[in-house]
């Protein structure tokens, strides 16, 4: 399995990406830190362990593709792409500025490494299905990954796409749900309950896995199992905490869905992440 040192390395990277998220959203004075931080460990494992890609040649046909269906978590994806070498890290601070390539929601035409433009929720999984079908037509071994929000799963199109993936037996596709349990108006459970969530995916014909979305080895293990699954698409329901890594955001997840930290809050958050970073390295 994964060596302890690799896991440590990934954990340190996750801290780095979280720091970028705080700095970027603070500089922009807008953006979505909560759902970026909940996805930080998943994105880290994808971009620094699981996905095959070439940052110098983003159009490499054999690459794995990642679709960020929860397009508002753009900051965490931008942070990963920059650290992976798709564009300079210095560009991160232009998030949401007029004329910047770092759009508020991901835009495939303005930055290298982005496979699909999203932002209107519920659309990413259909696109991921299309990519998986293309891989099959072209007899490519590449896989497609798609990250969804839990609130996003209230969109009907997600379930249309879920049916499609199962119907076409897309075992070259892995969906991951960032199950952070909060949406803009409140707890997902109270706004419109998804339960029984794993059963819904199972009933739609999917192979369903669960993991702790903040434990690097657990994420690695789940992604590995998904690769081995045959005849069905796999969804990993990753249990996460909105705002993970920044205690005051974790404590008030609703406040930090779509609100950036102030300068004072940025200092607090970075200090906390710094201490975490020291622990993990």
């Amino acid at each position, binding site marked *: 399995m994964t060596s302890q040192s690799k896991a440590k390395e990934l954990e340190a990277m996750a801290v780095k990406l979280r720091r970028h998220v705080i700095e970027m959203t603070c500089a922009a004075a807008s953006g979505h830190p909560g759902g970026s931080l909940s996805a930080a460990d998943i994105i880290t494992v994808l971009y620094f362990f699981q996905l095959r890609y070439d940052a110098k040649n983003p159009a490499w046909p054999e690459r794995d593709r990642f679709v960020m269906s929860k397009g508002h978590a753009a900051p965490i994806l931008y942070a990963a792409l920059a650290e992976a070498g798709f564009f300079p890290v210095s560009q991160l601070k232009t998030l949401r500025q007029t004329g910047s390539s770092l759009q508020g929601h991901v835009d495939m*035409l303005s930055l290298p490494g982005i496979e*699909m*433009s999203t932002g209107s929720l519920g659309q990413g999984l259909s*696109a991921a*299905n*299309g990519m998986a*079908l*293309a891989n099959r037509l072209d007899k490519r071994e590449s896989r497609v990954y798609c990250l969804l929000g839990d609130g996003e799963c209230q969109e009907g199109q997600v379930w249309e*796409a879920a*049916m499609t993936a199962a119907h076409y037996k897309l075992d070259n596709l892995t969906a991951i749900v960032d199950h952070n349990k909060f949406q803009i108006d409140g707890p997902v459970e109270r706004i419109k309950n998804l339960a029984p969530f794993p059963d819904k995916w199972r009933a739609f014909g999917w192979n369903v896995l669960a993991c702790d979305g903040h434990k690097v080895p657990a994420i690695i293990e789940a992604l590995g199992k998904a690769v081995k699954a045959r005849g069905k698409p796999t969804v990993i329901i990753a249990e996460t905490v909105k705002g993970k890594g920044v205690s005051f955001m974790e404590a008030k997840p609703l406040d930090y869905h779509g609100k950036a930290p102030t300068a004072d809050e940025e200092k607090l958050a970075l200090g906390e992440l710094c201490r975490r970073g020291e622990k993990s390295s």
Partner: protein
Amino acid sequence: MSETKMIATRDAYGKVLAEIGRENPDVVVLDADLAVSTKTSVFAKEFPDRFFDLGVAEQDMIGTAAGLAAAGKIVFASTFAVFGSGRAWDQVRVSVAYTRLSVKIVVTHAGITTGEDGASHQANEDIAIMRALPNMTVVVPADAVETEKTIRAAVKYYGPMYVRLSRPKTPVLHPADYDFQIGKGEVMRPGSDLTIIACGTMVAPALEAAAALGQEGLKARVVNLHTIKPLDKELIVRCAGETGAIVTAEEHSIIGGLGGAVAEVVAENAPVPLIRVGLKDVFGESGKPEELLVKYGLTAREIGAAARAALERKK
């Protein structure tokens, strides 16, 4: 007109789609449970591996089309005009237009000639909502030949496209060697008194109206403006300048479609009297196509009346 060949544009679509399927292995076709009606079934039969029926799920179909296109495929996605435009509009907007992917949304059963199915199935607003999207190209072929040319051009034309076809058989107006170009309107009949600008199923009645006006000594120019976007502004401005009056005719609402697009250009660049023939901000209803065309004022007679009214204003 009795000698004229009658072919539905959707039938022409099915035929040419199978041909380009043979010529280009990257062509992939999607449908949403209407393959028999949209005629993508012809392609599906010959290339089952490159045809995907997404079932009754138009939003998912457009998203899937975007994914296939992002992975290098040339994707044709078909359903009825109401569903391919309105039902999936946000998917078209974000996953196709914003991404500028090579997805060709070829819809059939546009307009009131969908007939018996009634208002829910008659797309009279689709040109308006599709042309409002940045990066989108909108083509409304006038006959079977133009449909074939449009689909062939679409294969070579990178980017999103909306092609609007019809259900009933319509007259073939063009010879097989007709020189079609996306974005370039076609002057089908010369004339200096006014210009009738039409698209799709209304081109044939426009020609008929012009012939009738000719008998009264009125020289009506007829323009087939198959491409609603990008609009041939130069031709519209020239027609306004040279003929001094314009009538538009479309099987679509007078709001935002061909008439709206032409009116925008005329008002800004060459104001002349202009009258729009089309559905007057109403829903359609069930009925025989030919009866509905009469009831809702989409005939050569109506175009002729509009032309006379426009000429009156010119004086």
